[in-house]
């Protein structure tokens, strides 16, 4: 954790030291990262979102009226899909897909000596290889979270409205927006950005820690994904602890 934090701080400082034209030139690396991590992951994220959305909404629509809590369904869906599970599921998908790719790419470059080759001509690898990836993944995770939440709700509401006469699509959507607060959106987006930074940071750190042996590549890739997932879980626990009113549990 400390090494990753140090890497993140060092990479931000490295980019800050670059001339403005150089920083502008690095945007292509970030855009490529957003394309790979974000755009190309939309089908996978959407598939998971459809499945999750239908399951949660249908189960809620079936179970909550039994307990006389139907009016709380919208608020529960906002919390479950929008604020908690949505960002976390997207983070896990990105960690296993893009995080592994970042770790594998950087560890291969390290093993082959390409990173030292850059240093040998005065190019800072932290500024040129690490920071653009962190920025790209953070933007991609936040964007994918929006996609996940939107698709999950749309799919779930559509399924619920078709399968139950008492529910209408427009009614569900209206209740959803009524139950959603700005705080929920802020927390979901903040978590997503933190997840993105953590995933790219841990995976870049493990990638750069590779030695000269080719067996380091799969080993570091595996460590990277495990570390990134663990970091996301810790972030989720910390943010929840800071934002949930635990006093309400005892009332």
């Amino acid at each position: 954790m400390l090494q990753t934090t140090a890497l993140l701080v060092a990479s931000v400082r490295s980019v800050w030291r670059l001339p403005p034209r150089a920083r502008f030139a690095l945007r292509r690396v970030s855009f490529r990262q957003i394309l790979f991590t974000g755009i190309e992951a939309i089908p996978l994220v959407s598939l998971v979102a459809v499945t999750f959305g239908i399951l949660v909404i249908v189960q809620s629509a079936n179970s909550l009226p039994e307990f006389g809590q139907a009016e709380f369904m919208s608020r529960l869906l906002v919390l479950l899909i929008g604020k908690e599970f949505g960002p976390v599921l997207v983070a896990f998908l990105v960690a296993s897909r893009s995080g592994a790719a970042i770790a594998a790419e950087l560890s291969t470059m390290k093993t082959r000596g390409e990173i030292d080759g850059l240093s040998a001509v005065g190019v800072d690898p932290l500024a040129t290889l690490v920071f653009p990836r962190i920025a790209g993944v953070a933007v991609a995770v936040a964007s994918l979270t929006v996609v996940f939440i939107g698709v999950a709700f749309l799919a779930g509401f559509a399924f619920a409205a078709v399968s139950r006469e008492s529910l209408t699509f427009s009614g569900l959507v209206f209740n959803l927006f009524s139950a959603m607060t700005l705080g929920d959106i802020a927390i979901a987006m903040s978590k997503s950005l933190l997840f993105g930074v953590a995933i790219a940071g841990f995976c870049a750190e493990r990638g750069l820690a590779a030695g000269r042996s080719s067996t380091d590549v799969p080993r570091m890739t595996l460590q990277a994904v495990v570390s990134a997932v663990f970091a996301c879980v810790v972030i989720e626990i910390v943010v929840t602890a800071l934002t949930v009113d635990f006093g309400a549990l005892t009332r």
Partner: protein
Amino acid sequence: MSLLALQQATFAGPGGCATAAVDVDVRPGELVVLELPTAVPGAAIARGSVGLTPAVSGQVTLFGVPIVDNAHEDLLKLRQRTAISSPGLPLLSNMSVRENVAFPLLMRGGRRQDVLALVDALLEQLGLAQHLDTRPEELPATAEALARVGRALAVPAELLVVDHPPRDDAVRALLDDKRAQGVGILVLTSAAADVPNATRALQLRPG
């Protein structure tokens, strides 16, 4: 003042063996050739001269600064005044030859159009005009070596370290140009005769 001074410096080579002790200093406008025995890897000395690999013993001084556990930022400032070409420091495999050679100049804040024009002219001089958009792993070995040297030559460095440069007239001419501009050059080679215009030629004896 010496740009680079290696005083009884030994470096770890493949398998952990240390190179023989190296004693060499390079001043501005000098082209120093260090002839190495076959068993001594030039890459270890090239890497050690800019702190990519710590010296096992002895001292390395770069632009008057001893290289001993230096902070990342301090080393980076020193490395921005150097350029190294070595088979142990390959080009980036996810970029073309042109992008590889242009990248250090773009990261120094050069205008893209000016940088690409300069790079294209340099690569043409090295006979790589038909390989501009080729990835390094697709190049023949000689062309890849020329591209590596091209990346080091493109950088506006005060010190140039070239490990086993290809035997090419264009490379010799470009090294001469650099020396005339006041750049200090250290060439590591197994045949000093390949670098006829050296200011000084030294021989490293196995020890």
